[in-house]
């Protein structure tokens, strides 16, 4: 309860300061959790393990708030010939195949998929183009690719080859290994639509 209040206060401070949409995630498991965060000023929330353990959560959230503000995060790992869903920040393996879970989640009301490949995350060797491409091309909702960005070419690949709708990177931006403006210029020159 205290943790939820602290997060809501942080969300309000952020909403005051920035003039673009933002998504809040982490430990969300109920309609009440989401209501608090959206009222605090968040535009979207992302859910992960709680939605997998109780998929009805996605139906409840999309009915109450609209699917446009419900992002489903999936941590996935390739092993034994397929991509599987992992929970609790990648610590708990499940028997569910990522493509199956993503499809079910969209049917239940997830409005966007944030897909993190554990095989690629932290490697700086590029995004997981195969599973990202499969979801981006088969699902009627935007897919955000995450994990593996190391070069500007990697971003071009995930948009052009995998047809991802968006790409996420954290450390290379935080540690200034890549400037966001430079990346945008590069992608613009590759004829991708970019907002500067």
């Amino acid at each position, binding site marked *: 309860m205290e943790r939820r209040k602290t997060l809501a206060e942080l969300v309000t401070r952020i909403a*005051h300061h920035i003039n673009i949409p933002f998504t809040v995630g982490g430990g969300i498991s109920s309609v009440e959790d989401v209501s608090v965060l959206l009222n605090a000023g968040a535009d979207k929330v992302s859910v992960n393990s709680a939605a997998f353990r109780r998929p009805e959560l996605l139906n409840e959230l999309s009915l109450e708030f609209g699917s446009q503000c419900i992002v489903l995060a999936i941590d996935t790992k390739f092993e034994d010939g397929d991509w599987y869903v992992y929970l609790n920040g990648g610590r708990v393996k499940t028997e569910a195949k990522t493509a199956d879970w993503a499809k079910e989640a969209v049917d239940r009301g997830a409005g966007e998929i944030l897909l993190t490949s554990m095989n690629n995350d932290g490697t700086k060797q590029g995004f997981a183009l195969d599973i990202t491409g499969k979801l981006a091309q088969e*699902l*009627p909702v935007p897919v955000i690719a995450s994990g593996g960005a190391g070069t500007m070419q990697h971003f071009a690949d995930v948009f052009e080859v995998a047809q991802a709708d968006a790409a996420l990177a954290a450390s290379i931006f935080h540690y200034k290994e890549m400037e966001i403006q430079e990346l945008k210029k590069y992608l613009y020159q590759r004829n991708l639509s970019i907002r500067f």
Partner: protein
Amino acid sequence: MKTVIIKYNAGNIRSVLFALERQNVEGVVTDDPAEIRAADKVIFPGVGEASTAMRYLREKGLDKVIKNLEQPTLGICLGMQLMCKHSEENNTDCLGIFDLNVRKFTSPVENLLKIPQIGWNNITGLHSKIFEHVPQNAYMYFVHSYYAELGPETTAIANYVINYSAALQKNNFYAAQFHPEKSAEHGEKLIESFLNL
């Protein structure tokens, strides 16, 4: 100057309040007809469903209040759609300020068009005072499944497989399908121009 945000059962009011605060303007959120009529500027925001929202507005008598406003009034997203004549969303008769129909996006090929449109899209053909400091092709942030068709009152066009009204104006009534309160510096310029009308 008094800026009022119409309170009704539709979301995103908080974001509009914050956007006003960033311009050092304090917005008043109210559903009181007298207070709305007395304001210098009125903002009619909205994220939600058309028939539920219209029913609420009628119950509160706000439909007539809004239609008869004479000060600059800005509808945002669902607010803009409700200012049109009719919405396909649950076959809803709306306020009729703009003589336009609101239709649902349909994908010509399965999965080609992701619905709702969520994200940044550029706007062209800008011609309204609220776009005075917004460049052609500026990116704005959209979240919607329904769109207003083009018409003589269209003041900005966006394309999502088809061209539709990204903004409208008729006399003192202004409207934007995108969210200026979430559209970075160009959205801020729009809000600033509106407040300076």
